[in-house]
């Protein structure tokens, strides 16, 4: 069981993901440079956070044309797990592998803070070990994390069970105050129709050791590991 962490020029959470997967979860992991055309035998693809291509034009808009994205697309089409975190989520929406788009935070501020997420669906490989309704604590760090989709698209996401995480308070209530970036329907993470591709703005890899204030993020990686092993 191996994870591949994709590295774009401007990725800056690639080493955090590598560390969490290798040293905390204890799974196999390797980096894949964005010029590569294959994921070198990985079972799970992780598109990490950062500022790929300096966020030029729009966050994720240029990265999606990198050669490695064809390999990610094939991996996804085979029904294998893909996880996009923060900028990785933005890249996957730009690539059309996930629905919606991420616009500027409603406050126009870059927000770096801990948030609470309510798991809404266990259907993805990354949330199979997490009961719906469970609340996880993870940090966010983004300027463009305000999830948007049209009302019709939102109804479709709801109907298909594609909303995976919502911002909530520590008690699991989706209060307005908990939705720090102003996302449509408090959405923090969505999956594709098939459920094998997950994107979220919060950083599970930065919530993977007790010293970091939360270990809740580990559960996403552990869940994918357990799914692959079963």
């Amino acid at each position, binding site marked *: 069981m191996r994870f591949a962490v994709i590295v774009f020029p401007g990725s800056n959470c690639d080493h955090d993901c590598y560390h969490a997967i290798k040293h905390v979860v204890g799974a196999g992991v390797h980096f894949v440079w964005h010029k590569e055309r294959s994921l070198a035998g990985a079972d799970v693809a992780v598109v990490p956070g950062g500022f790929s291509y300096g966020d030029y*034009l*729009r966050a994720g*808009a240029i990265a999606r*044309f990198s050669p490695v994205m064809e390999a990610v697309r094939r991996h996804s089409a085979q029904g294998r797990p893909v996880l996009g975190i923060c900028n990785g989520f933005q890249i996957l*929406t*730009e690539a059309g592998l996930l629905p*919606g*788009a991420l*616009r*500027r*935070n*409603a*406050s*126009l501020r870059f927000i770096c803070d801990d948030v609470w997420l309510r798991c809404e669906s266990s259907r993805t490989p990354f949330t199979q070990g997490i009961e719906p309704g469970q609340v996880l604590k993870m940090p966010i760090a983004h300027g463009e994390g*305000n999830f*948007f*989709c*049209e009302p019709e698209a939102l109804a479709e996401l709801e109907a298909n069970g594609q909303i995976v995480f919502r911002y909530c308070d520590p008690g699991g209530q989706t209060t307005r105050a908990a939705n720090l970036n*102003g996302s449509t329907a408090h959405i923090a993470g969505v999956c594709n129709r098939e459920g094998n591709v997950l994107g979220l703005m919060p950083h599970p890899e930065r919530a993977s050791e007790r010293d970091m204030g939360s270990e809740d993020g580990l559960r996403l990686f552990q869940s994918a590991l357990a799914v692959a092993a079963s």
Partner: protein
Amino acid sequence: MAKAVVYVTYKRGVLDPQGEAVRGALSSLGFQGVAGVRVGKYIEIELANGRPEEQRAAVEKMCRELLANPVLEDFRIEIAPGPSAPK
């Protein structure tokens, strides 16, 4: 050389946080009667001379595939023909 100008803005109905912030700043400066502000991107593209309809079609394709995100943005294209453009 012909020049294409592309304007990319959030679709009508999509909240534009930057536009809202500018609108608020204008009203606090005392400018009356500003009903709405939308902030967008302005992109200039220099084109080799060619047939105007082909140039427009090419720029439209650029907008759909890269310059705008159709989920939340609209685009508008203006093409100024170069001095030696075919009449």
